[in-house]
């Protein structure tokens, strides 16, 4: 497809985004609208936005490449995304979160816990962690989107990064959460349609059915490259060898880290507070699961089966045909689908990046302007959203600067870093705010501190994937990690930090329970 045609498609897409951002701007009257959409968001739009925010481009391109290289074991992540990220999140967390948020009139995640525990310190602590930690995660998404634009248009990376950032900034700053939700819904529909087409087209091209394709993939397990066999790879329809390095990465980092980490993501939690009633969250369970199995399930499944396609067309498996794991899915799509679909798939990747990034910018801005500096810009008009808009702008500038300031090695770990910190730091206090009314603010605050410090310690000194590129441990001790013995350096920080944070809140609550017990949840 020519660059001109591609450019026209992207320009039309950008105009639609701009119109949706403008629609959000027109319908935003006060700060409540800007932060929560007035708590009257359509459940379908909320669920689509939740799904689109959940799935970033790295879930499609990055984990799709992991599926092509290491096989179908990654489908456990899809299962946990559906089960933990939607079923558990909506039914066991979402319903109570919505009610608690409405009871306290909380508009952000830090406000929710701060008001529940009656502690401004907790609110500011959580908001600060979000505002400082999330730009690293946002930088991953920004850079991923910019690299994709660079590759598609042959554009300079710096120009691509600037354009990509300005477009997202435009509709988040002006349209607030309504602008974010409307654009997310469109982007979710594009992602869903693309993956559905890819699934049917792939089977049409290959000429086999579901079970037959899996069987053929199982039969080529002898073609696994030796370097992956050494890591525990046993074939694309087999789990890695128990206790191998690949098994630890798959089970602790990808499945547990991301699967549990998703429960305490501030940008996802806040979506539960946007709908008017519990029944609308119930509807979200259906929409969310269907969305995830089609988008995530398809790319992981087709990603693994792409080995059969490469074997048929090029005589080698995917990881031998394309050495860079992140390039397997884009090149596979380019080869296997019609030309017009390559352009549409590009919109799918851009949509996945933009929907995640817009939610991140909005959440960081809310933390700054509504939680830490809640009086900013509200002296004359208490309903003004100027403080939050200023926060969004600062968050964008900070994330943009991180793309240039930090090394690629650290930025690449940004997603797992932030998700791990969120889970270990926020999850126990968040869970207890919903289910254990005796939890005191002292116990919650102690748990937040322990979770944060334990996560940072594990990332800086124990987990090789983060400790090595950061280099602090090497600077102080001359080794990448404090414990060089396998499997300790391969275990995700969440497995150290979350139990410590949970123990802290349990011990703290038992030692000093909350005196004043509010009415039953």
């Amino acid at each position, binding site marked *: 497809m020519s660059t001109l045609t591609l450019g026209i498609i992207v320009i039309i897409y950008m105009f639609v985004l701009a119109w949706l951002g403008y629609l959000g701007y027109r319908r935003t009257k006060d700060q409540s609208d800007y932060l929560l959409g007035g*708590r009257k968001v359509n459940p379908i739009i909320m669920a689509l936005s939740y799904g689109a925010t959940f799935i970033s481009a790295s879930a499609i391109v990055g984990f799709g490449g992991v599926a092509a290289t290491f*096989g*179908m*074991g990654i*489908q*456990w992540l*899809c*299962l946990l995304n*559906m*089960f933990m990220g*939607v*079923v558990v999140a909506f*039914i066991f967390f979402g*319903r109570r979160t919505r*009610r608690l*948020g*409405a*009871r*306290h*009139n*909380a*508009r952000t995640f830090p*406000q929710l816990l701060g*008001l529940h525990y009656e502690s401004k310190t907790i609110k500011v602590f959580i908001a600060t962690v979000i505002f400082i930690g999330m730009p690293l995660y946002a930088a991953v998404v920004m850079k991923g989107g910019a690299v994709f634009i660079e590759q598609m248009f042959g554009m300079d990376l710096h120009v691509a990064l600037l354009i990509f950032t300005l477009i997202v900034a435009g509709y988040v700053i002006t349209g607030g959460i309504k602008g974010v939700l409307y654009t997310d819904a469109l982007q979710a529909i594009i992602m869903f349609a693309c993956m559905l087409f890819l699934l049917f087209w792939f089977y049409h091209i290959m000429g086999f059915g*579901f*079970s*037959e*394709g*899996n*069987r053929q993939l*199982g039969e080529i397990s002898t073609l696994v490259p030796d370097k992956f066999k050494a890591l525990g790879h046993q074939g694309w*329809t*087999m*789990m890695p060898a128990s206790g191998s390095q690949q098994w630890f990465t798959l089970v602790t980092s990808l499945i547990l880290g991301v699967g549990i980490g998703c429960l305490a993501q501030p940008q996802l939690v806040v979506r539960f507070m946007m709908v*008017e*009633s*519990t*029944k609308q969250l*119930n*509807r979200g*369970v*259906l*929409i*969310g*699961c*269907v969305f995830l*199995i089609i988008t995530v*399930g398809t790319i992981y499944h087709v990603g693994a089966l792409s080995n059969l396609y490469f074997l048929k067309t090029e005589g080698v498996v995917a990881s031998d045909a394309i050495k860079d794991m992140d390039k397997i899915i884009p090149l596979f799509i380019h080869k296997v689908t019609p030309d017009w679909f390559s352009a549409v798939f590009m919109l799918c990747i851009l949509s996945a990046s933009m929907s995640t990034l817009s939610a991140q910018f909005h959440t960081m801005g809310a933390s700054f302007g*509504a939680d830490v500096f*809640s*009086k900013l810009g509200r002296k004359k008009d*208490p309903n003004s959203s100027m403080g939050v808009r200023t926060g969004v702008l600062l968050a964008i500038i900070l994330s943009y600067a991180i793309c240039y300031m930090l090394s690629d090695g650290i930025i690449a770990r940004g997603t797992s870093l932030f998700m791990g910190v969120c889970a270990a730091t926020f999850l126990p206090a968040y869970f207890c705010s919903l289910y254990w009314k005796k939890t005191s603010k002292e116990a919650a605050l102690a748990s937040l501190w322990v979770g944060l410090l334990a996560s940072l310690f594990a990332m800086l000194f124990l987990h090789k994937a983060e400790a090595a590129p950061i280099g602090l441990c090497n600077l102080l001790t001359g080794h990448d990690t404090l414990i060089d013995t396998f499997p300790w350096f391969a275990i995700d920080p969440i497995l150290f930090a979350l139990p410590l944070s949970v123990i802290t809140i349990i011990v703290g609550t038992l030692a000093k329970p909350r005196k004043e017990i509010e009415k039953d949840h």
Partner: protein
Amino acid sequence: MFGIQDPGIWSAYLLMIVCLLFSIWFGIRTWNKEDKNDEQENEQSTDPKNEES
């Protein structure tokens, strides 16, 4: 099952289908089911006394 021999893999597919079927059943069953606590909580949320400062 599904042409896959390793239970570690086919069980993931099976559980995904179970999860999908549950979500469809749950979503349809509760599509219009009201929660009696909702109205009361929503009224509180519009109470200016609860406004976060």
